[in-house]
């Protein structure tokens, strides 16, 4: 049985299909259900979600039991006696599917067979389905979760960028040419996918690359932004040292006091600009994450890409707008923060 979860709105209707496998008893259902549950990740990559929500013993009988109990049926398998209403159980399922990257879901239980014998339970399900539909038209909750992930990745990447770029800029202020310049250029000369693939190959034997998807994305993004950050920081650093170096030396300020009291403060506008650029670059990057991400992990660009792959164009457009807004907001905040209250 197939329930087309149709969403309203303009243009072509966007669908997420929820399949109900309803039996019959004694037709190999358990073997099928165990197979589906054990291959959940592979199915998800193929676009079919066999959700954990409502699942017990590899099957989704809880969804049926809740309906029967509400309809007054007393003989239920495994002594089912959970307090949830059918609405709560099914809404939880709909939420899970809404958040899922897959365009289709499948729930399986031979207990659904008995809907034919209990019209009250069937009517309850029909009412629930009719009520749950409009919610699917809104921006999927997966988009918001992905936005949170992207924000965290972007901020971590920006922090790493500054940790790398500031000491390198300080070193480059003294040494005009040398190996540090080349390290900085490494990011510019290669694509994020190449660096990402390299990291994948290196990490694969020692760690699960999928578990490291987000840290690796943040690290590669920081590396990509490094040459730009150095181009921004180094000229300002040279200017600061030329202009204030002698006075600082005559006052015995070399080292940490100079960095803290003069260098960082004079470079604040450039640091803000570089951080803003790094944050925006990382926010919008769809490189490494596409290689590394497990099906249940997504940054906002990847989520947008997956929505497009599932022909959910309006949701993808919404995600794109959110992405643009977040990238611009991050850039503005860092850049503006760096330029506030700056003396000539």
């Amino acid at each position, binding site marked *: 049985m197939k329930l087309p979860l149709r969403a309203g709105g303009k243009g072509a209707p966007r669908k997420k299909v929820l399949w109900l496998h309803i039996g019959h008893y004694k037709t190999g259902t358990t073997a099928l259900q165990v197979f589906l549950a054990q291959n959940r990740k592979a199915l998800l990559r193929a676009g079919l979600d066999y959700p954990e929500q409502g699942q017990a013993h590899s099957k989704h009988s809880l969804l049926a039991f809740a309906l029967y109990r509400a309809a007054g049926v007393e003989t239920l398998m495994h002594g089912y006696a959970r307090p949830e209403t059918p609405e709560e159980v099914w809404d939880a399922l709909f939420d899970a599917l809404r958040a899922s990257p897959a365009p289709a879901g499948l729930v399986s239980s031979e207990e659904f067979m008995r809907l034919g014998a209990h019209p009250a339970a069937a009517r309850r399900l029909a009412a629930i389905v009719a009520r749950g539909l409009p919610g699917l038209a809104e921006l999927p909750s997966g988009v918001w979760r992905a936005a949170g992930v992207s924000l965290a990745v972007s901020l971590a990447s920006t922090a790493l960028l500054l940790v790398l770029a500031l000491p390198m800029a300080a070193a480059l202020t003294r040494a005009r040419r040398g190996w540090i310049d080349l390290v900085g250029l490494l990011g510019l000369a290669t694509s994020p996918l190449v660096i990402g693939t390299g990291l994948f190959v290196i990490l694969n034997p020692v760690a699960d690359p999928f578990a490291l998807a987000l840290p690796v994305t943040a690290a590669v993004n920081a590396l990509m932004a490094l040459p730009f950050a150095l181009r921004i920081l180094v000229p300002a650093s040279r200017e600061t040292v030329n*202009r*204030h170096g*002698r*006075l600082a*030396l*005559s*006052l*015995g*300020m*070399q080292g*940490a*006091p100079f960095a*803290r*009291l*003069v260098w960082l*403060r*004079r470079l604040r506008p450039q640091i803000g600009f570089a951080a803003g650029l790094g944050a925006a670059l990382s926010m919008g990057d769809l490189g490494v994450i596409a290689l590394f991400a497990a099906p249940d992990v997504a940054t906002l660009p990847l989520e947008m890409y997956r929505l497009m792959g599932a022909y959910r164009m309006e949701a993808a457009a919404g995600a794109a707008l959110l992405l643009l807004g977040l990238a611009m907001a991050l850039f503005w905040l860092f850049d503006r923060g760096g330029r506030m209250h*700056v*003396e*000539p």
Partner: protein
Amino acid sequence: MLSLEGVTVDNGGFHLRADLAVPKGARVAVIGPSGAGKSTLVEAVAGFLPVIEGRVLWRGRDITHDGPGARPVAMLFQDGNLFPHLTVAENVGLGLRPDLRLDAAQRKTVARALARVGLEGLGARRPAQLSGGQQSRAALARVLVQGRPLLLLDEPFAALGPALKSEMLDLVAELAGETGATLLMVSHDPGEARRIASDVILVAEGQAHPPEPTGPLLDDPPEALRAYLG
């Protein structure tokens, strides 16, 4: 006493030779044609230029290879004597501790120094909020708290008007008198030298000559100085 024993200073290929001594507490003007090496001499004493021959001694201690901050020297440059992003009080406080972690007593010292140079109550301002003369006074307040026995001036008041410049030089002379500091100041102006300097070091043709009393030297200048004075 500051001694330069058989010193050769390297300033990017230009060499300045100096073999001279400046007595403690003296106020010495460094005079000579443009490009003769006046700033080179002062910067070598401050530790910004390498001495490739000879020794620099302060009270018999060899400071030839000490860093600028480790020398008994306070210096005012032609410009950039204050950090524009720090307050006046912070700029002065740097003379006490380069990391600016001042205790209450040190903050009081800063306030006293500001009051001494006529900037009472202006410690919270940024340099850009002060006039040119006030900025010079703030830099002098820092020199005061530094308490270094050797004060080097590389024409820090050149951008001020004549009256203000004289006022600043008088203040410098006063402060040097109060602290007993030895003063070495680059100057273009013989009048300025007569006003506050007891002695003059003539720098000409790659050579810094030993100090001579100001009056007699300026009244009867040697050939090199005469050409410059016109």
